[in-house]
């Protein structure tokens, strides 16, 4: 396992951003972490990079517990993991040239002198599809898509084992999203890094992720192989997310029954009792309000879900109500 997160908790004061979450990512595996805004996805990513201090739980990188490593002890391990950020406008230092931004990780880890850095930057820019004359440019001279390519180049130049990509395309124009997404897919196949790909849009990870984990209010509600999640989502929340996602095939699109979730996402300061989804779940019944469903995999098929209605021989259908 490249990454193993066990029972991760992160509270910002009263805000329970992540509230007991476990997941694993194997070598060369892409895990799509999906959830609505505020569900705690970015917080998970930040904990993995130790950009924020976990409240509880453990994070293992490459088999090594990094949960409470000091900054100094963490430093050499940072070669193995990097991050691509969501906002192309705040993720690049406005005062650095592109060359400096992309070369910075090499210089930080003293892995190359200036000439070698320059060569590796040139190589990396080519890989992410940026022309060499971009090297002397400043971030504000680039488009959003180009900036995200720079962010990718910076994240990949050390050839990390794990890349945390936090909604790397959601701030981009729709027309640019596909090309950056394809680039990430190609680079991942090519370089073979593991990836925690964070997104609020399931359709973004359909062809990229090997597995998908769905988050709701700081907890996982379901996880499993991408194909299975799309074909047979078990948790009512996943079913709702999928019913809202655009589908390439117009026939399926028409036949699909749309599940509209009522109400807003509850506040993570005071999450609902029992099943956290019960305030919006079309299938909720008495027990849901008091008893919290555990994440379980009754068929032992590597596809657990946290819903009382998921049993060995039955899967709930949120679209079947009304």
């Amino acid at each position: 396992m490249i990454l193993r997160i066990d029972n991760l908790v992160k509270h910002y004061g009263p805000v329970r951003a992540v509230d007991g979450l476990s997941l694993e990512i194997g070598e060369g595996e892409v895990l799509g972490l999906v959830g609505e805004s505020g569900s705690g996805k970015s917080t998970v990513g930040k904990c993995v990079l130790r950009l924020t201090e976990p409240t509880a739980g453990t994070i293992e990188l490459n088999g090594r517990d990094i949960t409470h490593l000091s900054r100094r002890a963490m430093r050499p391990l940072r070669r193995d993991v990097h991050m691509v950020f969501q906002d192309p406008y705040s993720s690049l230092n406005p005062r650095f040239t592109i060359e400096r931004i992309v070369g910075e990780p090499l210089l930080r880890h003293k892995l190359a002198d200036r000439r070698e850095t320059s060569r590796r930057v040139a190589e990396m820019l080519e890989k992410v599809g940026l022309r060499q004359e971009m090297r002397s440019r400043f971030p504000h001279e680039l488009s959003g898509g180009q900036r995200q390519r720079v962010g990718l180049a910076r994240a990949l130049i050390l050839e990390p084992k794990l890349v945390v990509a936090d909604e790397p395309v959601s701030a981009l124009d729709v027309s640019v999203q596909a090309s950056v997404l394809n680039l990430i897919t190609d680079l991942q196949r090519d370089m073979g890094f593991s990836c925690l790909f964070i997104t609020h849009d399931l359709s973004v990870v359909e062809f990229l992720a090997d597995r998908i984990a769905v988050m709701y209010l700081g907890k996982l509600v379901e996880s499993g192989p991408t194909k299975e999640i799309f074909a047979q989502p078990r948790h009512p929340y996943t079913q709702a997310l999928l019913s809202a996602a655009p589908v390439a095939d117009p026939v399926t699109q028409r036949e699909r029954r749309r599940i509209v979730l009522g109400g807003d996402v509850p506040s993570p300061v005071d999450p609902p009792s029992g099943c956290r989804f019960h305030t919006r779940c079309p299938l909720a019944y008495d027990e849901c309000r008091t008893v919290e469903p555990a994440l379980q995999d009754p068929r032992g098929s590597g596809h657990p879900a946290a819903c009382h209605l998921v049993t060995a021989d039955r899967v709930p259908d949120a679209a079947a109500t009304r």
Partner: protein
Amino acid sequence: MTDTMAPPLRRARMWRRFRRRPMPMTGLVLVIGFILLALVGPLVTGDPAAQDYLATLAPPSAAHPMGTDDLGRDAFARIAHGAQVSLQAGVLSTALAMAVGIPIGLVAGFYRRWLDPIVMRLVDVTLAFPFLVFAVGLAAILGPSLRGVVLALGFSQLPAVIRITRGEVLAIREMDYVAAAVADGAGDGHIIFRYVLPNCASPLIVQATVAIPAAIIGEATLSFLGLGVQPPTPSWGVMLTTAQQYLGDAPWLAIWPGVMIALATLGFNLLGDGLRDVLDPRSGP
């Protein structure tokens, strides 16, 4: 290192944006004029202390383009030397405030958990302290002098510099590029000097264009009150003190320093407004 600075291309573009607009250009011309007057003026004008008893309180003429004062001293020479005093007061006090305030603001903002509450409490105390009382106290200790003026004005600017720096740092440290630097394993010093400081430069430059004219007025005020530069050293404030006795006979003695203070102040303010727009790296081409 050159790569933390604007490249020629970008600077040229900023200049083009700046040049197109009349107000900032007017400010720039006024400021350059003021600096030239302060630096070159004293070299070309005569001795500001030379007295011509045959021409006291003389109106402007070919020999004395700005007239003379009660002791027959050339007003233009005194204005030029006064500009030097003003420039010194403005630049030195601002430099002092920046030299002390920026490091304080940087660490307060960066280590906001431990240091920030203490620093901000001190800033509040400083703000609550009446400036004039402080200036009078300094004058009493150091004797009225330019040094006292610079110290008093520098001290009075300190809270603003600390606040601006700290505010910028608090915003910048939340930027993803700082997170990216942490993810690279960069240390605090590297992050503060390479990431945070360069990105709070713009508002501080703009602050300087506010602080310098304020200090010019402050110097004139303190000198006018007898707490600053002492006669016979020519300062615009000292000149105003003299002029008020002769407002009827020689109004130009009050007009020249008054106009100079107004123009210099206006120049810095217009320049500052222009810089504010141009220096934002996110602003368009």
